């Protein structure tokens, strides 16, 4: 987390937030995962492209190696995901500031994790929706607004058999 904060302070990345399984674990029980998914807002290049290359170069210069789709940072494989749609941008903008030990970091809100799972739509995303719905303090009013903004309410209702008001 310290490395992420340094990269942000240096302008290599913009806002970042932990998403995926590790963010879900912040709100629910611990489950087996080997992934640390970090969503990042990337500064645009002069050509207007969004690219992870400057981030990978900055990590490489610190001695962190790429391995598959991840970069190994102090023994943890971290997958960086650029903000790829409006829902992710919104989740990044409203992520919760939390402390991990003495290090500040940002974790996506559980309502955004639910909406992203519904949007992504894999089998494991259904499991995540079930787990977060049962174990976390979901703000259903906030969730309904997110689902409506991103046209996800129909799938939510199909998955959960629980229409939101």
């Amino acid at each position, binding site marked *: 987390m310290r490395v992420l904060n340094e990269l942000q302070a240096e302008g290599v990345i913009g806002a970042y937030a932990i998403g995926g399984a590790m963010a879900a674990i912040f709100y629910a029980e611990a489950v087996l995962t080997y992934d640390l998914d970090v969503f990042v807002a990337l500064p645009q290049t002069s050509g207007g492209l969004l690219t992870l290359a400057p981030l990978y170069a900055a990590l490489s210069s610190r001695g962190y190696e790429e391995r598959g789709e991840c970069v190994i940072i102090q023994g943890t*494989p971290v997958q960086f995901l650029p903000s790829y749609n409006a829902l992710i941008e919104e989740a990044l903008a409203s992520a919760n500031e939390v402390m991990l030990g003495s290090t500040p970091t940002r974790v996506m809100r559980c309502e955004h994790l639910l909406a992203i799972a519904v949007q992504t739509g894999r089998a494991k995303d259904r499991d995540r929706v079930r787990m977060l719905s049962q174990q976390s303090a979901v703000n259903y009013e906030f969730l309904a607004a997110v689902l409506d903004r991103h046209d996800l309410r129909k799938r939510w209702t199909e998955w959960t058999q629980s229409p939101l008001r």
Partner: protein
Amino acid sequence: MDRMDSIPPEVRRLFEASEARRQELAALPWEQKIRIVVGLQRMAAPILRARGLDVMPWELDETPEEAART
């Protein structure tokens, strides 16, 4: 009819206790949950590697057992 209605009461109590335990686990501090995740990773890694999956348990300063001792 609720599907739970067909389950014997003593088994239902076990399920309910299990669910209550999961809620307790969900309420643990994040740092503690991360230590549990790493413990799970270490347990599962040999099995997953035997299946040909390339997995890498995270490096933490302490295991759940070590944390419990401190």
